[in-house]
């Protein structure tokens, strides 16, 4: 059974007061997340990532399509007992302390008494909140609120955890902690679905990813499937040349870094040793040579440009058309 499954999930908004026009925030999203995966849901701002998460949490209702979590329909109370959710830029009740907030949420799951207290303490330890747990949330920094948010998402030992931009507002130490936490959750066999526009996190954490842009699913699959290991070229830095080498043929691009110093972007098919010999023959000195591989960023930028450039999906579109 898939942890999360969506079929043609779409969301239209009506924009404008006097003559509202439909604005399609999400075009028929179909994807599957298997149990135990760490799934990265990537895309630029405004791509529909938060819309998707809110649809899954039933904070908003879909215009079309269906989805299920743990095999159960959206909004199912039994299913909600087994999931956790951290919203983007979360806000919690600032008149409560961290302990009280977690206690309140734990109570909503039915935990009582000593069991509840133990659980709350454990989770606050796990996210790294010490004595601050007895302070009112209004005094918390953004990073501390984010930690509380993570704690409340995990209060019920969920099987599936939804995180919307979990790294937002965190300093590098905080992000390291969250990365560690996500890996721990994976090791515990839980499914983690998180949205982000920070690609390096996805590269380190995810088994599978999806890229959305302008409400469309542009690509999805494992990293190794999507990001080819093939070489795209060579980056060669030569110093001490009297003049710039001529671009053309194997030398795709020549850029001057400083007088006499150049970086050369060479075709992947070129033999690196030949190139270096040719370039240093005129008195140059090799500084560095690096193979260039396709990165996730390259893929990302390509997909986003494609979504923007083709303009197939911009503006109003009648409902019923699948992506």
């Amino acid at each position, binding site marked *: 059974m898939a942890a999360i499954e969506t079929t043609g999930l779409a969301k239209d*908004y009506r924009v404008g007061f006097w003559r509202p026009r439909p604005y399609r925030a999400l075009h028929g999203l179909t994807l599957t997340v298997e149990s135990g995966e760490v799934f990265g849901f990537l895309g630029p701002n405004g791509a529909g990532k938060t819309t998707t998460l809110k649809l899954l949490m039933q*904070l908003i209702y879909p215009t079309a399509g269906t989805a299920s979590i743990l095999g159960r329909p959206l909004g199912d109370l039994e299913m909600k*007992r087994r999931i*956790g959710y951290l919203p983007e830029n979360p*806000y919690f009740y600032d008149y409560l302390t961290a302990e009280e907030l977690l206690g309140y949420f734990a109570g909503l799951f039915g935990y009582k008494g000593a069991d509840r207290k133990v659980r709350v303490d454990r989770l606050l330890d796990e996210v790294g909140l010490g004595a601050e747990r007895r302070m009112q949330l209004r005094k918390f920094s953004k990073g501390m609120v984010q930690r509380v948010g993570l704690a409340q998402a995990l209060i019920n030992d969920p099987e599936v955890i939804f995180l919307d931009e979990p790294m937002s507002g965190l300093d590098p130490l905080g992000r390291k902690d969250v990365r560690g936490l996500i890996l721990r959750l994976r090791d515990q066999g839980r499914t983690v679905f998180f949205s982000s526009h920070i690609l390096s996190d996805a590269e380190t954490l995810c088994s599978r990813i999806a890229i959305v842009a302008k409400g469309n699913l542009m690509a999805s699959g494992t990293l190794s499937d999507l990001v080819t290991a093939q070489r795209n070229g060579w980056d060669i830095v030569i110093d001490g040349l009297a003049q710039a080498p001529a671009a053309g043929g194997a030398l795709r691009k020549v850029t001057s870094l400083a007088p006499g110093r150049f970086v050369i972007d060479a075709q992947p098919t070129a033999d690196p040793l030949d190139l270096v010999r040719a370039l240093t023959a005129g008195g140059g000195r090799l500084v560095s040579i690096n193979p260039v591989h396709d990165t996730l960023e390259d893929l990302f930028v390509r997909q986003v440009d494609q979504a923007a450039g083709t303009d197939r999906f911009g503006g109003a579109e009648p409902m019923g058309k699948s992506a």
Partner: protein
Amino acid sequence: MSAMVSVPTVARIAANVFKESVRDKVLYSIVLFAVIVIAASLLLGQLTAGQEVKIIKDLGLAAISLFGHFIAIFIGIGLVSKEVERRSIYALLAKPMSRAELVLGKYCGLVSTLTVNVVVMTAALVVVLAIYGATVEPQIRNTWEAPAVDPALATAAFLTLVELSVVTAIAICFSTFTSPVLAAAFTVGLVIAGQFSADLKNFEHIVDNHAATWLLNALYYVLPNLAPFDVKAQVVHAQPVTPTYVLLTTGYGALYVSALLALATLFFSRRDFK
């Protein structure tokens, strides 16, 4: 299934609302101000040529009603609006609860708060009246229509509380589908109209048009009639307020609240939280 409602969940949400109100400085200020006004009525008595007990009771009951209305309307509207605006509702709704439970929980929480506030203000009034009654000569005390500390005051306070429960339900209902400002305006408007409800019935004597009369009569029955909850004048003049009257009026209030909460639940369950 969002139609199912579990009492423990509603109770937990209500308890959270109560906790929020206890820590709310604005609420404290309002109640404190009401208590000060009630105590100050002792001074006003000097101006009334022997009518001190009447003015203390009038002012006290009016203060309980007025400040209670402020709390019911403005905090009632904030209950749902603030959650949605600040988006604390996102994390809350992801927990195992239905939208219906959330609305009911908020309502019950505020009614609990109002009950405590009304009790506190009524206690302050009773204390002031007891102090005044003790300092006055017996021959003057004998001329009063009702004793200074009159159990009927509790009846007036109770019916005020029932009225405030209806007003809270109105406020929550409007706030589930409009902005806070509009919700406040509509709620205040409906509460004021509720005081004139009786006039609607009398219009048929003034207006000749049959259709208009029918419409006004229908409005009389549909709009909340809030005037019967006001027994302040009767209590001060020692006119009896019978248990039957209290029962019928409370029943009306309960039914109206049920209708409003049903609507509120409906609106709340169908909306998108952008």
